[in-house]
Each structure stands twice: as structure tokens, then as C-alpha cells.
């Protein structure tokens, strides 16, 4: 038995891959849910109810989707150019920290709408700068960016911890490690009254459309694709690989930084160490499930958000540990990888 490359992969196959992956992962996770003594069908029903059952739960699911779209895009953009940015989590936290600092300090100086723009841009710059280091190390010295971006996540988290217990500590938080709050004027407008849903969702979706446009309709988009598919061929075709990689790094890092800035200005108002329940890492799954397609990212981010929000309420109802959400998401990543393979390869005897 061996694998043979397909001449072409049909659209049906490409759409079927994520669906098959999700079905397989729900089946496997169902076994684990049964292990906890709950009926898997009840559990999945509770999850859907928890994610869509009421106005509140729908708005919560969409609120959760927002950062996942952005970190998903960050991973998708980078992976397409074979730039392994695993530092989304760190870039998100640095973006969040910069946003909190600016939001606390510039609101009295700069008028509100402009201040919001400055804050979001600053968050993006922070994320991009954090990724530029590892990418420069890779281009100049050949240092593998997977390890450096991963390790930077831990360094950034310690840095955030240092700042929110030190210079940026909120004196009114009763010793709880929490950063100063951003000014009320620079909070993002709500999308839905009496809910936590804010216009960050629109920004995230707009970013997805913009990235899709850049990737499919511009020279730079073609160059990143070429650089990802075959480095030598791309270089031979006159594409400046280093420059392309730096460009990709700027986009990818700034998307993750934006996710952090939006979480702070749209939702939390301040930074704590549990600002992100691993959005940076989940973004990798979101991107892979979408087959690195920026528009697909919006849909798969919604899927991952449903799993997380749904699992929380299912856990309360049935007593299944909410860690099941991470299990479902990680199994779907692995099954998706296999399913994606079979869209380009087939098994031959």
C-alpha cells in the first residue's frame, strides 16, 4: 500500500475534509464523554444549547469567536508562507499590554475615536515587532523559528506578570495582579446592547476579507504563496524571500497583537494573566481546520468558539470536565491533517 499524488483535488473533497475531520473527532471525543458517565448525544446537545440556546449564549459565542478569527488568521497567513509562527499567544499578550497602557494614559490627551485607532495600531505594532525578532534570526542565522516563538510565549507571559504586579499594577485591585484599566472613552462600541459583544467581531471579519483579497489578488499574496510552496523556485523566479518573509511576519504578528488589543479595549478593559485561555494556540487549530483559507478561518473560529462556550455550559449541566473542549479541538486538528492529506493523495495498492 502506498500514497500516490492525485492529479487534481475536487472541490467536493476539499469541503468534505473538514466535515469528516470534525465528525471523526466528535466520535472519538464521544467515547471520552461516555467515560465520564454522560451520554455523548446529551452532551453534544447541551453544547449546542449552551452555544446557541439563548440571546446571551449566542452573543457569548460570537464574543469568543472574535480573538480566534484574528489568531487563526495570524497562523494561516504565516503557515501559508511556511513561516511557523507559534508565538501567537505571546504576541496577543504583548498587544494587550500595550493597549492597556495606552488606553490608560492617552485617553485624556487624544480624542476618543482617534485614541482607539492609535491603541489598536500600537497593539498591532507590538505583535509584529515580537515576531520580527525570531524571523530575522531565521533569515540571518537559520535559527528555527518554531522553538524561538514558542519560548518567547513564556518570556512574554512572565514580562506581563512583571508589569501587572509592578509598574502597571492597578492600585485599586486589592493586591490581585491586574493591570490598570483603560479609560471608558476608548472602549470599543458594543455591537449588541446588553451583551458583551463588541465591534471587534466586525474588525476581525473585515481583516479576514482583507487578507483574502491580499492573498488572491495581489502580487505580494502570490509571492507569499510561492515562497511557501517551493523556496528554490520562488527565489529563481526573482522573489526576494527575505523581504517576503518579513512582510508575512509583520502581517501575522500584527493580527495576533490586534487580537490582544481588541480583547482589552472591547471586552476586559484591563490585562490579567488569564486574559487568553490559549487563543494563540487555538488559532493554529483554527487555521489548519480552515485549510489556511482566510475566509474559512471565520467559520472554523466559530466552530472552535462553539466547542469552548458549549463545553463550559455542558460541563456545568452534566459534570463532564470542561477540558473536553481542548480534547475535541486538538483531535480535530490531527484528524484534519489526515483528511487534508487525502485531498491531495490517494491510497494505491
Amino acid at each position, binding site marked *: 500500500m502506498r500514497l500516490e499524488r492525485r492529479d487534481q483535488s475536487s472541490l467536493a473533497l476539499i469541503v468534505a475534509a473538514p466535515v469528516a475531520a470534525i465528525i471523526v473527532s466528535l466520535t472519538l471525543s464521544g467515547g471520552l464523554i461516555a467515560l465520564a458517565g454522560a451520554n455523548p448525544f446529551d452532551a453534544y446537545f447541551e453544547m449546542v444549547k449552551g452555544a446557541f440556546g439563548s440571546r446571551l449564549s449566542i452573543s457569548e459565542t460570537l464574543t469568543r469567536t472574535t480573538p480566534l478569527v484574528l489568531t487563526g488568521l495570524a497562523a494561516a497567513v504565516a503557515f501559508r508562507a511556511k513561516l511557523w509562527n507559534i508565538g501567537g499567544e505571546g504576541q496577543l499578550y504583548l498587544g494587550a499590554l500595550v493597549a492597556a497602557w495606552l488606553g490608560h494614559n492617552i485617553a485624556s490627551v487624544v480624542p476618543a475615536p482617534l485614541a482607539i485607532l492609535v491603541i489598536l495600531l500600537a497593539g498591532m505594532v507590538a505583535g509584529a515587532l515580537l515576531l520580527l525578532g525570531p524571523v530575522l534570526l531565521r533569515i540571518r542565522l537559520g535559527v*528555527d523559528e*518554531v522553538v524561538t516563538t514558542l519560548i518567547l510565549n513564556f518570556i512574554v507571559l512572565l514580562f506581563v506578570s512583571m508589569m501587572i504586579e509592578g509598574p502597571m499594577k492597578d492600585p485599586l485591585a486589592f493586591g490581585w495582579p491586574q493591570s490598570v484599566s483603560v479609560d471608558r472613552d476608548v472602549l470599543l462600541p458594543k455591537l449588541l446592547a446588553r451583551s458583551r459583544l463588541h465591534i471587534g467581531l466586525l474588525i476581525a471579519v473585515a481583516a479576514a476579507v482583507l487578507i483574502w483579497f491580499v492573498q488572491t489578488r495581489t502580487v505580494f499574496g502570490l509571492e507569499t504563496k510561492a515562497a511557501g510552496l517551493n523556496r528554490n523556485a520562488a527565489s529563481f523566479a526573482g522573489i526576494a524571500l527575505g523581504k517576503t518573509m518579513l512582510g508575512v511576519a509583520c502581517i501575522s504578528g500584527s493580527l495576533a497583537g490586534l487580537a490582544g488589543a481588541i480583547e482589552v479595549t472591547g471586552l476586559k478593559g484591563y490585562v490579567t494573566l488569564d486574559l487568553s485561555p490559549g487563543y494563540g494556540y487555538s488559532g493554529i487549530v483554527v487555521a489548519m481546520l480552515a485549510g489556511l483559507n482566510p475566509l474559512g478561518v471565520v467559520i472554523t473560529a466559530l466552530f472552535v468558539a462553539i466547542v469552548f462556550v458549549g463545553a463550559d455550559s455542558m460541563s456545568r449541566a452534566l459534570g463532564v470536565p470542561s477540558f473536553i473542549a481542548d480534547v475535541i479541538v486538538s483531535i480535530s486538528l490531527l484528524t484534519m491533517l489526515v483528511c487534508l492529506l487525502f485531498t491531495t493523495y490517494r491510497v494505491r495498492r
Partner: protein
Amino acid sequence: MEALEIFASASLWGAVLRIATPLIFGTLGALICERSGVLNLGIEGIMTLGAMVAWMTVYQGGDLWTGLIVAALCGGLFGLLHAMLTVPLGLSQHVTGLGITLFASSLTYYIYRLSLPVSSSPPTIEPFQPLAIPGLSDIPFVGEALFSQTAPTYLAIFACLATAYVLARTPLGLAVRMTGENPHAVEAQGLDPIRIRIGAIITGSAFMAVGGAFLTTATFNSFFPTMVQGRGWVCIALVVFASWRPGKALLGALLFALFDAYQLRLQHVVESAIPYQVFLMVPYVLSIVALIVMSRRAKVPQALMAPYRKGER
């Protein structure tokens, strides 16, 4: 100078070996995988899994050594999963490895939470006790520093020497190294590169799990989520630092542990003059520095991360 006096304490050098042990196991595991040509980023998750499984075995009434063996078996099982996905199927080793890490750690937390009710303080076990080597442990200073370790620490050093011997001096080691350099040449010799890679990944992953298990059965006596704290990623960096050589891996892990043990003690000396987070950053910063320093000289296995498909170039 108080900061320098730390080096004169035997407890520092004892701590170095203790801190180095999980790193030695993890680095050896990653090294074995990579010498056969496959990067295993599942390490962080496999170490987490090993930590929990070993602890749980002992907590349920098993022997400490049984705990380590069960951890090794579970690690091997996840190694097999990584191997099936990256070797016969030839999937991206980066993404698959991260997937294995996410899967192994989330499954670990799920099973742990399922087995034990939520409590404010995690339940504990009786961990490995220091095993004083008769005669040698009575030597002043050196005895306390080097010869009063727990049994798995001695095992880690032995494993390092054994791996070095097998890789460098046996036909099996030659086959593994050759698979990492040129799998087509292995095929031409009548050996199966696919089987060799699968075997190497299973072995390496078992080592990683034992490294994680050391944390719960010797360093600490309980399991808590996120306890591996990026040690797996540090090990991946140490493999590059060691230029894929087991002897240098041992040296790298010890050097690294020395910095870590030193910063822990230095924190007490400087008290609050420097935020404690700065000290905690040291190991992570060091591993990035190690990568940068060694990047030019690194002798990367030539076929690392290149999937091998029969009849495909």
C-alpha cells in the same frame, strides 16, 4: 560577595543534577527522534502525560518504578501516533507535533480531572527518596552534591551514556543515524527507513514521558496542570545546542540546570531589588541564546523534516 558564595554550597550542585534530570531524559528523547530524521514537537504534551500517568499509577497504589514504566509505555503510544502521522503519511512534522502536544496535554488534564474531584490542594504521593551511594556519599561536599541523588537521576546519566554508545557503536545506531542523513541509502542497504523511524520515535517519546514522570515522582510529589512549564521546548533547543550528540546533550542540560539552580538561589540574595519574573525568564532566554550561538556550527541531520516516501524523490 553573597552572589558568588552560592557556588560554594553543595546544595546548589545537588540541585543542578535534580533540575537537569527531566531535561536529560527529554533532550535524549528529542535527540533520538531527530537523529532518525523526525522532529517531535509532541514533547511538551508527552512530558505532561508522563508526569500525570506516573503520578496516578503511584497514587492508585502502584510502585514508583511501575509508575515510570507506565509513563514510558504511554509516551511510546503517543510516539507511535506521531510516527504514524509523520512517517508513513508524511504529514508536516511541525504541525503534527504541536497537535500531539495539544492532544496529549488536554487529554491528560481531562483524565486527571475525571479521576479526582476538584480540591484546593492537589493530593500527594511518597516520591523517590535520595539514594546515597555507600562510601562515595560520605565524601564531604562532593558526596552531598553528586552521590545523594534519587535513583532516576543516576538512570538519566546511564541512559545518556547508553544512548551515546548505541548511536555511535552499534549497527542499530548506525541505521538510525543513516536514516536521518539519507533514507534512500538505508533503503539501498535492504533496511526499511520507515520502520527505523517509527521505532526511533517510539523510543524517544518513551524517554520524554519518563522525563515528565520525574517531575511528579521525584522533584514534586503531586501533579498540577501546566507543571511542565515549557521544559519540552527547552529540550528541543538543547538538542540543537548539543549538535545532536548525546554527550553534549548531557553537558547542555547540566549547564542549563546550573543557571536555573543559581537563579533560584540568587532570588533570595537580591530579595525584591529585581522582580522575581526576571529570574524566571533566565532559562527561556538562555535557550534562545543557545540556539543563536550554535546555529552556525550545528550539524543538522540532513534528512531532518524531509518525509520519506518510497519511490518518490
